[in-house]
């Protein structure tokens, strides 16, 4: 206990005052280390924090009295800060060492207890976010069955029977269909596009639809392919819809989803149900286009397929409307539209860094709970 309050401070010299404060803290630090037992701690507490005789309070009283009045306020604030720090150090030292004190105060290092929170599936979340972007543009959500007829999945979308375009969408079929007429055969929808057909048959334009859903293809599974996957598709049909409207809508949607600095570019492509058709790339939102692993160092990521609704699709819709006793409503001399679609798994894998598509369907708690 060698430390005592110094009496030789030159209160007109800031250096001298600072040194006094530093000495006080250094002495405190030495002594607090040594105060192991409950007795020692109590002794320490009285010596330093005692109401009148404690070093801290005595120091405060004596020094503030001695200091020139112009500097009293500033010194007071400084001394108070030291006092708070010393108090905290004392408590921390006590929490770490003294079992007697621990019984009374909280071990703040223990983890908090809580009920586990449920986590939305990353694919549901991605679909919900994507749908929200289009909902904000005035699109309504439409859904359709996963088991479809050949007519809705292929024929009405301008995939004629025995056409090579069908090869690109290997199909899972329901048993015992071979004796049925081709257009009535049941299959697992290979894309969400049949919902476009169903919606147009059900109602006349204008239509703005966003269509999330599960689709199936008879593909081998690997790290990036699954026979079960999800799509979000959109359809906009009205008078005078143009190709530049398609471009503008998707450019806007990608900026809303990935951030306003994202750029889009369009490449000619081929889909039987749209013409002209395009693939859309966005500038990589992860590296800003500089090149990274996610964009394979190209600065661009291919994300969407789209195009202007093919007149053959409108014709198939109107033919079915007439069969159903409705007025034709999709005459291409006045009506045009565009459609677009994207793979949900691909976006989620990229966004969250998922390496194996199969994990989405594993129900593995360890995987799913990462998306909280």
């Amino acid at each position, binding site marked *: 206990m060698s430390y005592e309050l110094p009496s030789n401070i030159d209160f007109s010299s800031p250096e001298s005052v600072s040194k006094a404060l530093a000495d006080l803290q250094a002495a405190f630090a030495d002594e607090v280390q040594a105060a192991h037992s409950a007795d020692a701690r109590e002794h320490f507490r009285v010596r330093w924090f005692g109401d009148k005789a404690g070093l801290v309070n005595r120091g405060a009283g004596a020094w503030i009295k001695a200091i020139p009045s112009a500097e009293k306020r500033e010194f007071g604030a400084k001394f108070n800060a030291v006092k708070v720090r010393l108090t905290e150090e004392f408590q921390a030292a006590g929490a770490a060492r003294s079992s007697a004190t621990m019984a009374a105060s909280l071990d703040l290092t223990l983890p908090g207890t809580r009920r586990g929170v449920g986590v939305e599936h990353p694919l549901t979340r991605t679909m919900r976010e994507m749908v929200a972007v289009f909902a904000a543009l005035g699109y309504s959500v439409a859904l359709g069955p996963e088991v479809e007829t050949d007519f809705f999945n292929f024929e009405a979308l301008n995939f004629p029977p025995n056409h090579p375009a069908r090869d690109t969408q290997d199909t899972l079929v329901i048993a015992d269909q071979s004796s049925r007429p081709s257009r009535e055969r049941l299959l697992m929808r290979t894309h969400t596009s049949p919902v476009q057909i169903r919606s147009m048959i059900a109602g006349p334009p204008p239509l703005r639809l966003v269509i999330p859903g599960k689709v199936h293809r008879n593909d081998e599974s690997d790290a990036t392919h699954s026979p079960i996957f999800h799509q979000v598709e959109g359809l906009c049909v*009205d008078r005078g819809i143009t190709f530049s409207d398609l471009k503008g809508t998707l450019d806007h949607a990608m900026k809303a989803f990935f951030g306003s600095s994202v750029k889009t570019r369009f490449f000619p492509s081929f889909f039987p149900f749209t013409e002209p058709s395009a693939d859309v790339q966005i500038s990589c939102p992860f590296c800003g286009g500089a090149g990274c692993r996610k964009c394979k160092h190209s600065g661009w990521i291919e994300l969407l397929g789209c195009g202007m609704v093919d007149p053959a699709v409108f014709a198939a819709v109107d033919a079915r409307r007439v069969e159903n006793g409705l007025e034709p409503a999709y005459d291409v001399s006045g009506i045009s539209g565009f459609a677009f679609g994207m793979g949900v798994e691909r976006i989620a894998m990229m966004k969250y860094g998922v390496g194996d598509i199969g994990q989405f369907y594993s129900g593995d708690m360890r995987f799913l709970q990462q998306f909280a």
Partner: protein
Amino acid sequence: MNILSKWLREYLPALDVDDRQLAEDLTLRGIAVEGVHELPDGGHLFEMDITTNRVDAMNHYGVAREAAAIYGLPLLTLEDWRVANVEAGPVPVPDDDLSVGEYSLPRGHTLSGLSDANKKVAPSQADAAGHSVRIEAEDLCGRFTARVVRSVTVEASTGLVAERFAALGQKSISNAVDATNYNWMAMGHPTHVFDLDTLQGGIVVRRAHAGEMLRLLDGSTKLLTIDDLVIADERKALGLAGIMGGWDSRVTEATKNILVEAAWFSPTAIRASSRRHGLHTDASHRYERGADLGACASANQLVTRALEVSCGGVADAAFTDVTVAAWEKKTRQRPRVTLRVRYTQEFLGTTIEIGESGNVLPEDKIEQYLEALGCHLRPSVDGARFEVNLPSWRLDLEREIDLVEEIARVYGYNRFADTLPSFSGGVTALPFAAADAKVREVLLALGYTEALGSTFAGEADSALFAQKAAVAMGNPLSAEAGVLRPSLLPGVVGMVEQNSARDVREVRLFEVGNVFSGSTETVAEEPSLALAAFGGGVKTRTIAAADALFFEVKGAVEEVLGRFVTPALLWSGADLPAWVEPGRGARVSAGGVVLAVVGELSIAEREERKLREDAVFAEVYLPALFACPLQQPSAVEPSRFQAVERDLSFLFSDAVRWADVVAAVRGLGIAEMISLEPVEIYRDAKGKSVAAGEYSLLFRMVFQSGERTLTEQELGGWQESVVGALTGIGGRHRAPEAA
């Protein structure tokens, strides 16, 4: 498919952009160059990825034509190219004038004019040597050309052909076969060479006889049907038309004389035959997507000339060319298409560049691009439209919209502006969107994590977990995915099994998805909800450890169902499904409609699946639940008067259920009793403090009035009547000092 830039440039002598720029410009026009690889000769190898509708562009000449359209450059005719690059004199042309091009149709030369010139449209012909060619199956074959090249020496390829094959990774077979493949890569029309001396008599293109056998070039032997098309001689089939040549007539090193075939076959016939035999070749790929009927003679002449140059042969003067008029009409003489200028401009919308016609696509571009692609345009008198002749190699072009796409494509998609359409309609919500969102919200809040599972299930699992028959798949992904899932339970039980196997000790999952029932004739599809809980149940003062998980799931199901306005819920332990451990589950119904099933997985199934903890599952039938309206919250003013708690302890026989207690107490009709809850249930295994077959129940009543403070007297009276009612159902009140 790969392209050599140097080869491509042979067709476009005026091309002055470098290879990388060329690759980028092609890609932006839909002729995608996926990779550019530098070659030792200073040129580049382009790895192409061309969409399946553009088979015409899957060769050097086809890509060159695209570049010619993009840059507005002249494209050599194939004949001019041959003269300039195959380094030999003009090949004798006995038939159509190739230099004015069946293949590369020059401007101003109309198709109808060409048809008039083509006087050789006839069902059969014989060449000078007596090799007649007859198309018997006129519905499947549109054109057949043949020419004989004599005195060839068949050996390995050398020179340019060998170098280019090496660069392109194309397998070299012999100079004769390589000539056909070289020409294939040059201009994209399949040709075939026969060993002439193996043929007997004339060639006939006919349907195969039922049961006819044919050994093919790959060594396999195929059993043919009458739907297969063959090239045959007098005796037998020589090759499977448009797919693969035959073994017996193949060209070998011993071959001295060759017959060159270049033909055109019906796309659907080749596709069906190719699928039937599982044979997908370069030739079948092209034919089934539409080859160029107009290119047959040209292709034949180019291969003939190549055989003269590389195999030292001499071609016969005679050239046989048989065309079926009906196919000629469907390919080379297709009806003209009317293209409206303003419609095209309005449909495509705003352009970035502003020209004479404002910010729409310039009219002169429309004409320029289509002409460059091989169309011929005749403007209407008022200039408002064009009458367009379509090139025979672009069978994918049929309609006005096809031409509009071509124009937009060559112009460049990214030269159109980004505009947003105005909209007049309203937004409509799906009927069950709010109910679905509420169910998810509740389950997530209760700690259930969302899972998505397979749409398919195994037959055994389906039979165990679903009451309805499952619909079978015709081509299941695997034996365990043989049927459409009739229930979500097989999926979530499988997930729990997987988690358990990975040492995950606690699982709370839910899945919302469609389930399927009915027949393969009519499949019924409806949404369902499954819950899975595994491990981690916590016992309480009223619920024993062994029962904890069941009651946790019961709570979750109650919470979900409670968000809907339903008749009173009835939890019944009768008639449980087979997967539920007897006595450890319930059907939940409301107003006679089953809304859910909850149960502990049977011990047998638990052992089968090696589950290391308790597992409780539930399925909620969403169509039945969603038929009930969602609860609409409405506020009631909370009472300002004090609530008073009263606890009572009773001994009951095990036969008395909590519901009996509730019924007895509620039967007293005490309006001020706002709550009645069990606090502790105790059984003594040793039968000391509580006798065997009995349990002690501590429960709590809360009394409150909205109008006044309750008096001790009232409370005492109510308590007394509760004791009386419970004594009436066999309970024994335990005095506080005894409790």
